[in-house]
């Protein structure tokens, strides 16, 4: 494990990712201090370009401060990204592990189920879910979690299957260990690292889905969101490019940072690379 941490820290791209993510977290933490008011409040004239009238990144159609929106949006994005990934991991890893370890009929059924879910255009399902269940933080998390689990389930299944076929697992059975303790003590620990990597990347894609949902007008109306800001800026892009440019950059940076961390994790946890 210490080896992995060292390999991770040796990679400049991973460190860069960590640094950016740290800044995003800092932004989320500092939002209520730097911009104590609500990001929905009008602070000046509408459509002011960046740097004018005391607003760092300009104002939008309603005179709301873009910089304030971005800082306040950070925590919502991160929270939804992480929460929906945890939900997706819970479903995906459980189903994938059961399918991979049980095999036979159970496996075939679960695989079929995964395949059906992968066929469904996941963003459309997310739209449908949020629209019908009415937009709120919890329905958004539910929807994103529900459309993000299939790749994790697939990966877990393949991993568990390949580890379970290894001879040390059979040896453990011969040693008299029960199925549950073999799964928890031998199979999962050896199968987990690619799942951690993909899980971390899932946070980025969840943030992107959340942004797209709020862009479509399906965000939680109580929270400022980056996607919503771009959606609001879309109609005035000819007059006020800043209203959509900056929130987009915020999403982009956050997602890049998470992916960089994911890749560095991959190199650190993948013994084939870290050994050489």
């Amino acid at each position, binding site marked *: 494990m210490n080896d992995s941490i060292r390999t991770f820290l040796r990679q400049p791209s991973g460190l860069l990712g960590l640094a950016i993510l740290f800044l995003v977290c800092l932004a989320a933490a500092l939002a209520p201090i730097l911009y104590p008011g609500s990001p929905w409040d009008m602070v000046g004239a509408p459509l002011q370009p960046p740097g004018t009238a005391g607003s760092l990144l300009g104002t939008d159609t309603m005179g709301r401060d873009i910089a304030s929106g971005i800082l306040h949006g950070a925590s919502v994005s991160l929270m939804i990204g992480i929460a929906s990934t945890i939900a997706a991991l819970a479903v995906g890893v459980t189903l994938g592990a059961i399918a991979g370890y049980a095999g036979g009929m159970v496996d075939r059924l679960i695989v079929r189920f995964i395949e059906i879910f992968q066929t469904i255009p996941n*963003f459309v399902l997310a739209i*449908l879910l949020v629209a*019908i269940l009415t937009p709120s933080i919890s329905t958004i998390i539910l929807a994103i979690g529900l459309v993000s689990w299939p790749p994790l389930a697939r990966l877990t299944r393949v991993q568990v299957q390949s580890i379970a076929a290894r001879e040390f697992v059979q040896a453990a059975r011969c040693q008299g260990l029960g199925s549950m303790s073999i799964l928890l003590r031998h199979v999962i620990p050896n199968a987990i690292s690619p799942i951690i990597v993909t899980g971390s990347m899932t946070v980025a894609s969840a943030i992107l889905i959340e942004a797209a949902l709020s862009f479509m*007008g399906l965000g939680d109306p109580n929270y400022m969101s980056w996607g919503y800001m771009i959606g609001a800026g879309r109609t005035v*892009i000819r007059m006020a490019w800043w209203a959509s440019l900056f929130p987009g950059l915020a999403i982009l940076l956050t997602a890049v940072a998470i992916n960089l961390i994911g890749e560095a994790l991959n190199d650190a946890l993948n013994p084939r690379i870290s050994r050489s």
Partner: protein
Amino acid sequence: MSLAAIFSRVAGIVITIFVIATINFVLVRAAPGDPAAVIAGQSGATDEKFLAQVRAEYGLDQPYVVQLGAYLGKVATLDLGYSYRLRRPVKDLIAERLGPTLLLTLSAFLISLLGGVVFGALAGVRHGKISDLAISLLALILYATPVFWFGLMLVLLFSIKLEWLPAFGYVDMRAGSFGPFAYALDVLKHLCLPALTLGAIYMAMYARLMRASVIEVAAEDYIKTARAKGLTEGAILRGHMLRNASLPVITFAGLQVGAMIGGAVVVETVFSWPGLGRLIFDAVTSRDYPVLLGLFLVMSILVIAVNLLTDLIHRLVDPRLAVR
């Protein structure tokens, strides 16, 4: 492909469609409030008489099993319901929007696959060199870019600043007077930005995968064999690496079709492209649930169709699949 295999494939597709239809059914029942109000949308939610009519039509007073059976029966006969808001059958609404969506997604699919394979192979072969670094970095950034924002930025650059390409719509408003060739050209011009937007994001994904795949294939024994035969590096790349390395990309592209059609929804919204995605946006805004549900079903079927297509490509590329 044997008859039995085709049969089992078709059965699989039918099962998938019915599961998706069932999800639709459950969703409407899971919605807070009266399902009749959900189906009626915001159009007539207050009119009790109208709601009663909807209830009768959908058999909402029947047990759930009967309702589900009736709904599946409707799906099987291609009856996708009625948009009370637009006062038209959902089937007709979808049919007239299908063409533009197909045009957009298929062009984006081809752009992404071809571009991804070419750039990914280039990066993989030049593993560790400057061109690899440039392609990898660009792919990393594009991969993390929100599609709709990327589209807006392209509009900002190519339509507003440079004025090269039209920013919105499917065809010019004066297109009625165009000849067939000029019309096609105009559509193509309008297609450029949306197809590029949607294609580029997935291109980034496939390029990353292709790069990794090329690096992996380069270490295979048969590449050593090819080298031992005296082939040039170019011949090895063309004759032995590309096809093998693109296999995982094709598999992955097949899995991404669903996501891509989802991506089309936002891209169509950004570019006011008159396809299914745009219809979804309008339906979401007006909470027109019959349209949403119908669209969800049709788009799923679309994914299945494109999956069949990628399957076919897969079989063409990999002889091992064709025999099994």
